[in-house]
C-alpha cells in the first residue's frame, strides 16, 4: 500500500483544484459511471439487493470513480491522484480482522459475509454528546452491555464546568473524555475494553493529544478518522493517521455516502459509498468503517424512509464484502429520538439489514442528536436482539426483504418522533428503561414477532 508519507507529499504536489470545480466534477463523473455500469434502483418493494452481478458492476464503478477523481485535500486544495494499481493493491493488502482491547476484553472485529451465520461484532455507543454530570454513568451503562466489543466516545460541551472553546480547551476536554471512558469501562468491570476516541474537533492537536498509554488512548484502542463527504481529506487527520499508524491504535471511519449531495441520488451514492472506504483506507489507514448510504433528508429527519435507500446500502455492503477486505458496520441511525416506538422500529430495520448484507453493528443514535438526547443502552441491546434473531432464524436475503417490506409499510409516511433525553426515558442508576419505555419496547417486540421475526420472549 502506498505510504502515508507518499500521500502527504501528494497533498502538497497534486493538481490544484478549486473546491466548487471538484464538487461538480464529482457529480458529473459519478453520473456517467452510474449510466456506464447500469446502476439502477429496481423499484418500490426492493429492499435487499438480489443481483450479484450488480454488486460487481457497482464495485467496478467505485474503483473507476476513485481512479478518475482521486481524493481532494481541502487543506491544500489539491487533488491526490491514485493509480488503479495502487487502489487494487490497497484493497488486497487490507486486513479482514482487527484485534482490539486487552485481557478478558480482547476482541477480534471481523469482516462479515453476506447472509453470514456468525453473530455480529458490536459497538453499542456513543457518538451522542453528553454533559459531564452524567457522562461517567452513561459510559458505565453502555460498557455493561456484554456484547460490546468496543465503545466509542462522544463530544462534550463543557469540561470542569467551563464551556469548551479554542484548541487548548479542546485538547484538555479530549483527554478528559478519554479519561471518563477509561473510568467508565473500569467501573463496568471491563478494564480492557477497547475505547475509540471520538474527536471533539478535527485539529491534529485534539486527535493526537489523547494518546497516553497510562491515562488515555492505549495502543489497543482506536480512533475515528473520517474522510469528509465527497472524497475530501484534511491534513490534520493525515497528521493523526501518521502518528497513530506508528503508535498502533486501530482506526475507524464514517465511510458512507450522502445521497442528495454532490454524489447525486441513491445510485450515485452507491458509487461514492464503495469508493469512500477504500479512499479512507489509503488516506488514513482506516480498516473499520460504517458503510453504506444515507440521505440528506433522513439525516435532517425530514423523512423517515426514502425509497431505495435500504437497497442502495445493500448494494454497497455486498460489493464491499465480496470484493474487498473492508470491515463494514451498520450505523443504526433512526430519525426518531430515543424512548419512542418509531426509533425502535427504524432501529429494527437497520438491524435486520446488517447481518444480511455483511455488516457489524454500530452506535445506534438519533440522526439529529443533541446533548443527552440521542440514545440509551436499550437501543443498543435491541439492535443486538434483532440481528441475533435474524441469524438464528436463518433468514436469507429473500426472507429479510419480506420482513423489511412489512416494517417499511408500518413506518412509511410517519413523521419522526422527537423522543426524550436519556434521563427522561432510561434509569441509569439501575441500567434499565423506565416503565413507559419498557412498555413501548414490549409493544415493538410484539409487532416484530407478528411480522415474522422470532424474537426471544
Amino acid at each position, binding site marked *: 500500500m502506498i505510504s502515508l508519507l507518499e500521500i502527504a507529499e501528494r497533498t502538497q504536489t497534486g493538481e490544484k483544484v478549486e*473546491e*466548487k470545480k471538484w*464538487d*461538480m466534477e464529482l*457529480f458529473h463523473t459519478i453520473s456517467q459511471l452510474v449510466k456506464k455500469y447500469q446502476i439502477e434502483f429496481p423499484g418500490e418493494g426492493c429492499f435487499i439487493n438480489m443481483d450479484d452481478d450488480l454488486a460487481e458492476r457497482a464495485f467496478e464503478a467505485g474503483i473507476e470513480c476513485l481512479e478518475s477523481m482521486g481524493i481532494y485535500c*481541502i487543506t491544500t486544495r489539491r487533488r491526490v491522484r491514485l493509480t488503479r494499481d495502487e487502489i487494487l493493491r490497497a484493497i488486497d493488502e487490507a486486513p479482514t480482522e482487527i484485534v482490539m482491547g486487552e485481557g478478558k476484553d480482547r476482541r477480534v472485529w471481523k469482516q462479515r459475509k453476506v447472509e453470514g451465520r456468525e453473530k455480529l461484532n458490536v459497538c453499542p455507543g456513543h457518538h451522542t*454528546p453528553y454533559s459531564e454530570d452524567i457522562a461517567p454513568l452513561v459510559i458505565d451503562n453502555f460498557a455493561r452491555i456484554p456484547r460490546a466489543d468496543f465503545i466509542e466516545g462522544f*463530544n*462534550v*460541551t463543557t469540561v470542569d464546568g467551563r*464551556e*469548551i*472553546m*479554542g*484548541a487548548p480547551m*479542546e485538547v484538555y*476536554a479530549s483527554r478528559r473524555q478519554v479519561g471518563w471512558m477509561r473510568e467508565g469501562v473500569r467501573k463496568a468491570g471491563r478494564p480492557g475494553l477497547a475505547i475509540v476516541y471520538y474527536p*471533539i*474537533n*478535527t*485539529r491534529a492537536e485534539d486527535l493526537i493529544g489523547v494518546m497516553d498509554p497510562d491515562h488515555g488512548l492505549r495502543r489497543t484502542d482506536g480512533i475515528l478518522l473520517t474522510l*469528509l*463527504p*465527497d472524497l475530501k481529506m*484534511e491534513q490534520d487527520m493525515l497528521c493523526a493517521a501518521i502518528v497513530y499508524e506508528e503508535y498502533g491504535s486501530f482506526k475507524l471511519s464514517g465511510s458512507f455516502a*450522502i*445521497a*442528495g*449531495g*454532490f454524489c*447525486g*441520488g441513491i445510485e*450515485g451514492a452507491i458509487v461514492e459509498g464503495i469508493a469512500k472506504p477504500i479512499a479512507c483506507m489509503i488516506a488514513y489507514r482506516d480498516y473499520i468503517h460504517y458503510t453504506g448510504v444515507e*440521505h*440528506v*433528508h433522513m439525516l*435532517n*429527519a*425530514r423523512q423517515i424512509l*426514502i425509497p431505495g435507500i435500504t437497497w442502495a446500502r445493500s448494494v454497497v455492503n455486498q460489493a464491499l464484502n465480496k470484493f474487498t477486505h473492508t470491515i463494514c458496520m451498520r450505523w443504526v441511525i433512526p430519525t426518531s429520538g430515543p424512548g419512542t416506538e418509531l426509533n425502535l422500529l427504524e432501529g429494527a430495520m437497520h438491524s435486520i439489514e446488517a447481518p444480511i448484507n455483511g455488516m457489524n453493528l454500530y452506535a445506534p443514535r438519533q440522526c*439529529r*442528536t*443533541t*446533548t443527552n438526547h440521542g440514545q440509551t443502552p436499550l437501543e443498543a441491546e435491541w439492535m443486538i436482539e434483532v440481528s441475533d434473531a435474524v441469524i438464528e432464524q436463518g433468514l436469507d436475503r429473500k426472507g429479510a426483504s419480506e420482513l423489511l417490506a412489512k416494517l417499511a409499510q408500518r413506518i412509511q409516511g410517519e413523521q419522526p418522533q422527537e423522543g426524550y433525553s436519556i434521563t427522561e426515558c432510561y434509569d441509569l442508576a439501575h441500567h434499565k428503561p423506565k416503565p413507559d419505555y419498557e412498555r413501548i419496547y414490549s409493544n415493538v417486540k410484539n409487532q416484530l414477532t407478528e411480522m415474522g421475526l422470532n424474537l426471544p420472549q
Partner: protein
Amino acid sequence: MELSNLPQGQRDLLDSLRDAIVAIDEEKARNVAEAIVNEEMDPNTAIRYSIAHAAVKVGEKFDSGEYYLPHLVMAGDLMDEVGTILGRNIPSDQIGEKKVIVIGTVQGDMHSVGKNLVSTMLKSGGFQVHDMGVDVASMAFIDRAKEVNADMIALSSLLTTTMPYQKEVIDDLASMGLREKFKVIVGGGPVTEHYAKEIGADGYAKDAVEALREVKRLLA
C-alpha cells in the same frame, strides 16, 4: 407590470424562461432571456416572475428528492447568468438590489455539507450569497459583512465544541455596536432553536429548506 396585462406571447416567454431554468437547460434559458430583452419587456417583471418562480420550483424539487445539491448549484449559476442578461437594459439606478447574505462554517469546524446546501438554496432563492467556506474566524464574518454591506450573517456549526463561535460572532457584533446592522441566523447538527434563542440569534433553521423560508421571513 402585472402579468395579466401582458400579451399572451410575452407571458409564454416568461413561462418558457422559468421552465428552462427549472430544467437547467442553459442554452434555452439564455435564448429565451435574449428574446425577452429583444422584445423590450420589462426586465424586472421577468426577474420577479421567471427567476423567482423558478427558484421556488427548484427548491420544491430538492425537497421532494428529485433534485440534488449539484442541481441547486447549476440552477443558481443559471439564474445568475440569466439575471445578468435580463439586467443589461435596466438603468443602474433602477436595478433592484438583492438581499446579501454572508455564510460560512464557524472557526475550527471543517464540515461543509449542510452549509453548502443552505448556501446554494439561498442563492437559488434569489439572494446574493458570499460563501466564506469553513473554519471561518468570527471577525472574518463581520469584516466581510461590513465589506459587502450584508443584510444577514448565516453561521453553521456541526460540532458542539464550535457552537460557541456562533455566540462569539453575535457578541462581537454587539460589542462593536453593529448588532442591529445584521440579522444573524444559525444552524447545524447539534444546534437547536433553544440554543439559537439563548445566544441571541435572530433565526434558526434545521435544514436548507427551512433556512430559505426563515431567511425570507427575516429579510422581508
